């Protein structure tokens, strides 16, 4: 019928219009004030996990994550402490080239890396996108990610 299809469409939009006032039609989340909960697996920037018992990083600077990274975003310098144990002297992740694929986290055999729950990572300078060891360190209880296991 001529005109019926148009009326049907108009009815749908009118229903939605009324629904936003009396029903639960609104789907928008008022972002800065209102935030959706992050799923536990959220794949943000990788973070280093600190052992709460010893207060040291779990990372033993084996370099597997460096090799696993598709973009070469991880820079690692190995240092040795008093007891001849290796630790990351420098551990930088270039947030500008990192694509948050999570392959480094999967590759890590010591569960020393996890996907962090951060997503507002914009900055005015490129240098600020290079995250160093201190920035990346998180105690394990703060990490909601399943990758930490």
């Amino acid at each position, binding site marked *: 019928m001529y005109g019926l299809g*148009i009326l049907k*469409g*108009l009815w*749908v*939009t*009118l229903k*939605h*219009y009324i*629904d*936003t*006032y009396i029903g639960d*039609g*609104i*789907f*928008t989340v*008022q972002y800065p004030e209102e935030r959706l909960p992050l799923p536990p697996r959220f794949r943000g920037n990788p973070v280093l996990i600190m052992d709460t018992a010893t207060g040291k990083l779990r990372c033993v600077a084996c370099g597997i994550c460096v090799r696993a990274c598709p973009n070469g975003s991880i820079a690692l310098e190995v240092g040795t402490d008093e007891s001849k144990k290796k630790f990351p002297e420098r551990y930088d992740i270039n947030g500008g080239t990192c694509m948050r694929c999570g392959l480094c986290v999967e590759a890590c055999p010591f569960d020393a890396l996890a996907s962090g729950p951060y997503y507002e990572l914009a900055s005015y300078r490129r240098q600020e996108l290079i995250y160093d060891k201190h920035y990346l360190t998180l105690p394990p209880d703060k990490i909601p990610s399943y990758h930490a296991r």
Partner: protein
Amino acid sequence: MWDLVYDLFPKISQALNAFLRGFLPGWGADLAVIVLVVTVLLLGLAALFMVQTWLERKVIGRMQDRFGPNRVGPLGMLQPVADGIKMFTKEDVTPLRADRLAYNLGPILIIVPAMAVYAVIPFGKGMVGADVNIGVLYLVAISSLATIALLAAGWGSNNKYSLLGGLRAAAQIVSYEVPMVLSMLTAVMLAGSMSMVKIVEAQGGLFGLGWYIFFVPIGPIAFLIYFTCGVAEVNRAPFDIPEAESEIVAGFHTEYSGMKFALFMMGEYIQAFAVSAIAVTLFLGGWQGPVLPPYVWFGLKTFSLWFVLMWLRGTLPRLRVDQLMAFAWKFLLPVSLANIFLTGIGISIVQILTK
């Protein structure tokens, strides 16, 4: 007290006139009142544009399950002001090798007829800028001037999208003018006058409900044809092909920025409101209606039609340019001609019966 509310605006103007006559000669007081009324009307139209944009964004937002603007001011009401500030501070670019005269004339030419239309629209009882006895003719003549503005803008911009948009606009407006005028004739024939005030007064029967849209079948048909053509005349969805975003970017105002762009938008929105107002005047009884004051009735009806315009925009896709032409010439024109014929027969029958 109710009398005062009922005839609020004419009473204010009379009181003002009487007050001014205390120290001015008669013609001076009249002139002052006229200047004042015109100023208020023009400022009111600028404010109306703001309300319209805000309403449209709110309503379409709601139709799309969003809130619409809600950051600037309560309910986002200051959004148009923020937009205005943005428009004023933007760089005003004139494209290289543009036809400067046509390019700069475009925005002015579109705003003048859009505002001039309001001179003859009766907003309420005794609230009309000028009760011209050829009001309808004036409306038709003035509102088609917008074509020149769109063509000037499209040609002057030295942009292919603009040119396409300008040509589409010219073709569209010229074609839709014909059925529009013919559908307006129905109201003119029924009222027996071309004066807008007379047409409204003629619809005052049945306690203010003798609107022409209730004159089945000619009234509704004429109203629908007028409204369709009006929507096409002001380039709004589903007839927004001269500025079809997905096809020709923004049509004739692709190259405009800042305040010139704002003038185009303003012209368009005010014209769209004028289309609603004229439809109300000709077919929906203007300010006629029971109980409520005339200006309230007029506002209610006009804003309802404006809501329909927003609603259409929020729902419908747009026609193609040749389908648009075919719709005007092959469907609307014959129907409106037949409608005039029917109207004539109806009027003759009534005349014979009442003789």
